[in-house]
């Protein structure tokens, strides 16, 4: 007879998730009863406060260890780092609602984004297959709705496309999970480490299907075809959130699987397909960027390439590699949010800042925004003086150190290709005005301007203080 199978530790462990969930329940109701012209700021304010509270609760968990709820959710530094990245993405994206999206849709969108973040937080700490599945689905289901939140037909269609393709990928992943369950007889990820499973056909086929699902969510080539269309169709705050949170949460699941759930005595050939996908992503993503005329599409292809870069650090599954991957992920989150913030500052409900033509001769009209955009693009390209540069050096060093030199070569090659795409935008921004009448630029509110400055400062400061959590690996299990 168990009266209460949970303890206080359990509830403390998922306190950030509960906070976000409760905020997600409060926001739509506040929206129903708020005055018509206050709806936008009421939703952003409540969502932002909830996010800050969750981030504070989350930080307190850094030193704790073990799992809660019968091994469903792991505590500790690894979980906390990924949770904080998701919360950063959430907070940054909430700010973008200040200018983009129609007032009457903001409340619902903020609530859905909070639910989506809930799923991403669950994934960050998921240590059994059920939590992984629940997290991924909560993240994705809310994102499907968010993608269709605009009135543009492209937005609706991107939602349908995302739903069909992503659910199919979930189907593959679910079959993989069933086979993994069949291999070990337990849903706990740690149960897969039993040595006898290294040659189990259930484990091999199950992991392969599981990786296909994760590769899709992370938009690794050749499973990336959805991402440019969906990024373009989705409203701007959603694209910003999706590009960071989905990658961070999926990387958390993948890293936990690679570091904590592989059977002892597994051959390295088992993971080779993942590194091949990483190499392919770097090529496809960077080549795809060259022909784009829309910022969101360009950043989608950039995201494909960046996902490949991140995996270079994990190749060889060394402790140092995981630290560097987290460093690069933080840098990627900040530069992506920065670029989207500039785009949102140039946009209204019509999202004019999404077209690359809007950046022509921007420096003469909005020098501050043009300068910051250049910084973020340099960071995405991996040039000094930004964290993107240091991050790429660290990734390269692990790639070479673990013997995956061909990935390092592809990383350099991909970076060289991407320079053309990024440089094209910077050149356009600093070109002379061509005399043609440009549409009037909106004036962004001050929180947006300040957040852009903070992202820029953070990117430069991170270069000189490469804070990587040194004791992260013991926390993965």
């Amino acid at each position, binding site marked *: 007879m168990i009266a209460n199978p949970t303890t206080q530790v359990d509830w403390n462990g998922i306190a950030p998730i509960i906070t976000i969930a409760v905020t997600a329940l409060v926001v739509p109701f506040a929206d129903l009863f708020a005055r018509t012209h206050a709806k936008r700021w009421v939703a952003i304010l409540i969502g932002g406060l909830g996010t800050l509270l969750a981030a504070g609760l989350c930080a307190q968990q850094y030193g704790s260890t073990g799992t809660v709820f019968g091994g469903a959710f792991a505590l500790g530094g690894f979980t906390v780092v990924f949770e904080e990245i998701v919360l950063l993405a959430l907070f940054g994206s909430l700010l973008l609602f200040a200018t983009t999206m129609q007032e009457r849709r903001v409340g619902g969108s903020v609530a859905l984004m909070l639910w989506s973040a809930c799923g991403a937080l669950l994934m960050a700490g998921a240590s059994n*297959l*059920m939590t992984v*599945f*629940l997290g991924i*689905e909560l993240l994705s*289901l809310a994102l*499907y*709705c968010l993608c*269709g939140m605009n009135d543009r*037909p*492209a937005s*609706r*269609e*991107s*939602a*349908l*496309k995302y*739903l*069909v393709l992503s*659910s*199919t990928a*979930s*189907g*593959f992943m*679910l*079959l993989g*999970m*069933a*086979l993994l*369950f*069949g291999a070990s*007889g*337990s*849903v706990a990820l740690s149960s897969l480490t039993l040595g006898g499973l290294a040659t189990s056909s259930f484990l091999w086929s199950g992991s392969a299907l599981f990786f296909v699902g994760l590769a899709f969510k992370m938009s690794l080539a050749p499973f990336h*075809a959805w991402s440019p*269309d969906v990024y*373009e*169709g989705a409203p701007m705050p959603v694209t910003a959130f999706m590009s960071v949170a989905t990658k961070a949460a999926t990387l958390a699941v993948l890293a936990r699987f690679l570091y904590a759930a592989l059977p002892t005595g597994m051959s390295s050939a088992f993971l080779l397909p993942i590194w091949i996908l990483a190499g392919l992503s770097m090529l496809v993503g960077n080549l795809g960027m060259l022909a784009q005329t829309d910022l969101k599409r360009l950043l989608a292809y950039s995201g494909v390439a960046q996902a490949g870069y991140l995996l270079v650090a994990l190749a060889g599954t060394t402790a140092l590699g995981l630290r560097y991957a987290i460093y690069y992920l933080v840098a990627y989150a900040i530069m992506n949010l920065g670029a989207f913030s500039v785009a949102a500052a140039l946009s209204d409900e019509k999202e004019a800042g999404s077209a690359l033509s809007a950046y022509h001769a921007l420096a003469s009209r909005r020098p501050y925004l043009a300068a910051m955009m250049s910084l973020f693009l340099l960071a995405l390209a991996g040039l000094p003086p930004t964290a993107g540069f240091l991050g790429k050096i660290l990734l390269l060093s692990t790639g070479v150190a673990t013997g995956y030199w061909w990935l390092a070569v592809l990383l350099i090659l991909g970076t060289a290709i991407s320079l053309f795409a990024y440089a094209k935008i910077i050149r356009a921004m600093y070109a002379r005005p061509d005399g043609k009448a440009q549409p009037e630029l909106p004036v962004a509110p001050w929180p947006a301007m300040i957040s852009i400055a903070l992202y820029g400062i953070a990117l430069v400061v991170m270069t000189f203080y490469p804070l990587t959590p040194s004791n992260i690996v013991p926390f993965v299990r």
Partner: protein
Amino acid sequence: MDLTVLPVALGDYIGLSLVIFFIGVAGIALRRNPLIVLMSIELMWNAANLLFITFARVYMNNAGHIFAFLVITVAAAEAAIGLAIVVVVFRNAKNVDVDDVRILRG
């Protein structure tokens, strides 16, 4: 693993599950009606459910049953959202056909 609890061989369950799964995959690849596509997705998810139930029986571990429940409820939410998106996409269209979704370049 205790295979004696199963009335037929384990391979038969896995085979049936795979057949259902690939009927779903074929449905998504070949059919153009989004409602049929949504049904095919359900088929894929339920193929996985069958495997979960099978292994739950083989290992005498209730986690498989709970997982199947979880999948059923999530699938319902997914179907509802899918239906909602289909309705808003095709509200002004004559036919319901995923090939008509052409504004975004592949």
